[in-house]
């Protein structure tokens, strides 16, 4: 039906991006050893609420379909829900990564009430010891509590995001047996191999071809 192939036309590019990946803040309550963005402290040049909303308005005008929000821990921002609601108002879908520390029962209910929202909770070990060695003491319990809160709020399906390392690659079956992952319409795992992250000195955990 078309005179020139789609592949040829694709060389001209799209009129706008399909999605935007946005590190909303570098502030983080955790200090994971493999952190790609070496997050921890807030960047003083971080966008203000009004600036962030203006970006969302621009994405709406470009008809960008969705954004991937990361950080840092994006829920650290006090205006996090305000920005989520603005994105929803602009018909922009949101996917965000979190360590779960701020997914309280009340916040889980707020998240469950929103449209076009995907959540992934980071977990780097199927047990407390393996996870906390990478993500810090207490982070396993934080993530599991967040998962319970999302389940209790009937959020629906969410993902756990696993950075695969030599330490956890043997635990893939154990991840699928975590409490909320065995329930229907609740959680599913999503594995990303740690291939070339800037680490805080954890290169020894990087996967090697013979690790699996």
């Amino acid at each position, binding site marked *: 039906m*078309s005179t020139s192939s789609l592949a040829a036309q694709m060389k001209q590019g799209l009129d706008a991006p399909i999605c935007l990946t946005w590190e909303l803040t570098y502030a983080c309550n955790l200090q994971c050893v493999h952190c790609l963005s070496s997050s921890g402290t807030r960047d003083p040049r971080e966008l203000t609420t009004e600036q962030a909303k203006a970006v969302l308005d621009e994405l709406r005008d470009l008809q960008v379909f969705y954004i991937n929000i990361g950080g840092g821990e994006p829920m650290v921002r006090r205006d996090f829900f305000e920005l989520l609601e603005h994105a929803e108002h602009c018909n922009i879908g949101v996917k965000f990564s979190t360590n779960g520390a701020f997914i309280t029962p009340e916040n889980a209910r707020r998240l469950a009430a929103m449209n076009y929202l995907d959540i992934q909770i980071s977990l780097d070990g199927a047990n407390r010891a393996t996870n906390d060695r990478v993500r810090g003491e207490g982070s396993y319990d934080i993530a599991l509590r967040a998962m319970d809160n999302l389940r209790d709020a009937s959020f629906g399906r969410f993902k756990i995001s696993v950075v695969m390392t030599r330490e956890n690659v043997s635990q893939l079956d154990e991840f699928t047996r975590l409490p909320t992952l065995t329930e229907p319409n609740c959680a599913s795992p999503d594995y990303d191999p740690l291939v070339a992250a800037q680490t805080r000195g954890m290169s020894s955990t990087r996967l090697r071809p013979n690790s699996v």
Partner: protein
Amino acid sequence: MTLTLDSACELHPDVALRPEPFGALAYHYGNRRLIFLKHPDVVAVVRDAANHRSLREVLVENGIAESRWPSFISALTSLAQSEVIRVH
């Protein structure tokens, strides 16, 4: 699901349609699928579908030659299977 010339359709309410040089991109906010609509005539028909009682009427109103109708019905059927459009 197979559409016919008698089917009445509309753009799915969860779908955003964005114009592109080749036609349009459709994003389904429900199932998170991205679909390429690779011809401007198909985009025009999809956008106008809700205004008519049948696809036959949509094709006539948009000046689509009758010889092209079978390929349009097949393209629209595939868009219905992807939930870009739905029967109404």
